[in-house]
């Protein structure tokens, strides 16, 4: 067959970003350890999802926040090459700064026009200790910030669900409440596979449509797994 017209072809990039609360309270009752293990264990399953959606190039990054916010994995890393280095807990809960850091990367450039809707998963066990609203405003001021699929997992009962709901910005999607390691693991698995799959091949969405999300987010696990009185956060 004769050479096709046009230049180089490429898959569409899909950015998947973890926002991990590494405040001091996350060191209590094994929460940070569970977070580290769950994200690491999710990687092979994310690779499976990526291989089933070959036209999306899944690129993973992560931000850790406690005193301030820093890129934990700064380079968008193809899921095939992504590894998770443990994060440690200690300090405050500067969630607003994490959102500002993210907002910077959602400008165009560096975001390409042809990217698929990004997926951002916020994991937190407490209340923001900085200006969360300013950080959220900065994120939502970016078109890619608005159009990202935003998921939140509340770790334990002290997590501020209202703040997490504001971050999600979609009344049809609620923060997931993980009160023990099994639930946290299950929700991390769901966010990194089911939601990722949905964002990998989204249908178009008319602007101004009544739904707040341009990617239909499947329902989270209805049975969040076993709970144990000794493991409740």
């Amino acid at each position, binding site marked *: 067959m004769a050479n*096709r017209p046009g*230049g180089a072809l*490429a898959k569409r990039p899909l950015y998947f970003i973890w926002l991990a609360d590494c405040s001091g309270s996350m060191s209590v009752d094994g929460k940070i350890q569970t977070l580290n293990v769950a994200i690491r264990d999710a990687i092979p399953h994310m690779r499976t999802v990526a291989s089933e959606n070959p036209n999306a190039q899944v690129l993973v990054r992560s931000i850790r926040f406690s005193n301030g916010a820093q890129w934990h994995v700064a380079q968008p890393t193809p899921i095939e090459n992504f590894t998770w280095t443990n994060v440690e807990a200690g300090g405050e809960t500067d969630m607003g700064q994490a959102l500002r850091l993210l907002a910077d990367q959602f400008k165009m450039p560096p975001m390409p026009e042809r990217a698929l809707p990004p997926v951002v998963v916020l994991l937190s066990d407490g209340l923001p200790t900085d200006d969360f609203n300013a950080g959220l405003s900065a994120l939502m001021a970016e078109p890619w910030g608005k159009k990202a699929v935003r998921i939140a997992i509340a770790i334990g009962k002290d997590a501020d669900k209202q703040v997490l709901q504001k971050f999600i910005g979609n009344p049809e999607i609620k923060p997931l409440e993980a009160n023990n390691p099994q639930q946290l693991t299950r929700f991390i698995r769901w966010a990194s596979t089911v939601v990722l799959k949905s964002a990998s091949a989204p249908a178009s*969405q008319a602007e101004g449509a009544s739904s707040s999300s341009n990617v239909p987010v499947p329902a989270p696990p209805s049975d969040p797994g076993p709970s144990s009185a000794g493991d409740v956060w």
Partner: protein
Amino acid sequence: MFRSLRPRQTRDRVAREMCGSGLSLRGLMMPPRDQPSMWKGLKRMVRGVAHSTCQDWCDFDVTGTDVVVAAVADGHGGDKYFRSHVGAQLAVKAAIESSQQLLANSTADLRQLRGLVQNDLPHEIVKAWRAKVRDDMQREPFTSNEEGKLAAGERSLEAQLVPYGSTLLLALVSSHFIAYLQLGDGDILAVGTDQTVIRPIQRDPTLIANETTSLASTWPDRRTGRLVHEPWRLMKTHFHELGTEGEPPLLIMLSSDGYSNSFRDNSAFEQVATDILTALRSHGHEWVDSALDGWLQETSVHGSGDDISVALLHRRDATGPDAASRDKEDTAPPGGSNEVM
């Protein structure tokens, strides 16, 4: 009225004088009715690997003596837009028919034609599309399963249009003007006689992350809160007078966003238009027609995975005098990196 063709400069001077006098240009520069249009068309749609039904539609008509026209539409797909493949077909039909009806036998001068195309035509297209959608709903009422997918509590006609949601791209070419119309994502490219690729309508930077404006777009009226369906307000148009504003392009290409989303960047995509023009010159119209399927399939598989539809109008003189007699299937056209990232 002048019937014979005159040198271009003389025709332009006469055209300006006649426009100033309010007289019509029609009949002055049109080819005689028994001669073929100076334009030929090509179209193709391929289904994306991830889709069970192709949501795109495209068509062209180069037989008109007043105007030749091409249109592409991309249905939104997914659970909410469960009849968007139908909506796309109806959009292309509505656009082509409305264009032809509005401009058939028109004695309007260029200024009036500009107004017709940029103001009246968007309304006519939306009106025609709504009528066709209503007819489809009457022929095939929503099943109970489909009714369940409509927005809760919404049973207005405006809400019932949503499942048919589609984008629309349109190109009209006459002897006096070229016009383009765009609603939603997708791309319109034109290759000039100097081989440069232009976008008559610039991309809308807000249409990212698979979000698009649509024939089904509605919004609540500020005063009443009722849903308003006026997607003509979202349509972008470009009107280009020929003669005074330059020669017609050699090639016009309309394509759904599955095509441009398959390329590494904008310049890699825009190269498609010049490469196709080169292929038309080297190998001719029939050869390109036979190659299109394979090209689009390969692009979708290694690129976006999405449906791809393309409608092309090219000038007959773009193929060159001897191209039709050549059949070099194994000869690659010049240019065009086939690197896959």
